[in-house]
């Protein structure tokens, strides 16, 4: 698959327990509304245990999955799963 047809997804903290990796490339374009469903197929249980309580960023900006239901993840985008933070 050509690299221009994928997006990057980065996993942090508890998300890594499910993905078993820090990041990977996935096929693009992908409607944002299908992201969680796609991740659940790959990593059963991740939605309930991690995604429900996490935020999502695309290219370093937080996205609201409900408000931006129409959004499409494009080739070259960088998506990140942001579980509850714990600095300090």
């Amino acid at each position, binding site marked *: 698959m050509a690299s221009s047809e994928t997006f990057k997804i*980065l996993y*942090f*903290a*508890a998300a890594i*327990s499910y993905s078993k990796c820090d990041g990977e490339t996935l096929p693009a374009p992908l409607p944002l509304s299908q992201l969680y469903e796609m991740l659940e197929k790959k990593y059963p249980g991740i939605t309930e*245990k*991690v995604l429900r309580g996490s935020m999502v*960023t695309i290219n*370093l900006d937080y996205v609201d999955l409900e408000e931006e239901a129409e959004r499409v993840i494009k080739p070259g985008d960088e998506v*990140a799963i*942001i*579980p*509850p*933070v*714990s*600095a*300090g």
Partner: protein
Amino acid sequence: NVHVCLTHAPLNLSTTVDLVRSPKAGAIVLFAGTTRDSFDSIPVTTLSYTTYTPLALRTLHTIAQEIKEKHGLVGIAITHRLGDVGIGEESIHIALSSPHRKSAWAAGEEALEEVKKKAEIWKREVFEDGSVWRSNRDGERGVRVED
């Protein structure tokens, strides 16, 4: 005069303070967060920090800039350490300088709360029998790390 930094190296108190020292300041406040030897009475071996570097830097800078403007500070520096931070060692420094002490105290407290609420940095508490991803939000029990 806004400094934010992520580093794997041990933090140095005078280095942090020197970043905000200024002839315009009458007060410097420094907060250092350290690794405590227990959580909920369970012995902690170490804390380990990871981050989403570009996003954490942006968030830390925004927090620092806003706190500086709101409290009329002269300088502000936030440094967070990454990787393993042993018992008694510092994971975070927040230093700020101000013409007067009242705003320095207030700004220091507010800056720490904002960092703990927003910065894209994660703490893993390592116990003898495993480890847990801690969440600052709600004082949650934490998510056990599965192998």
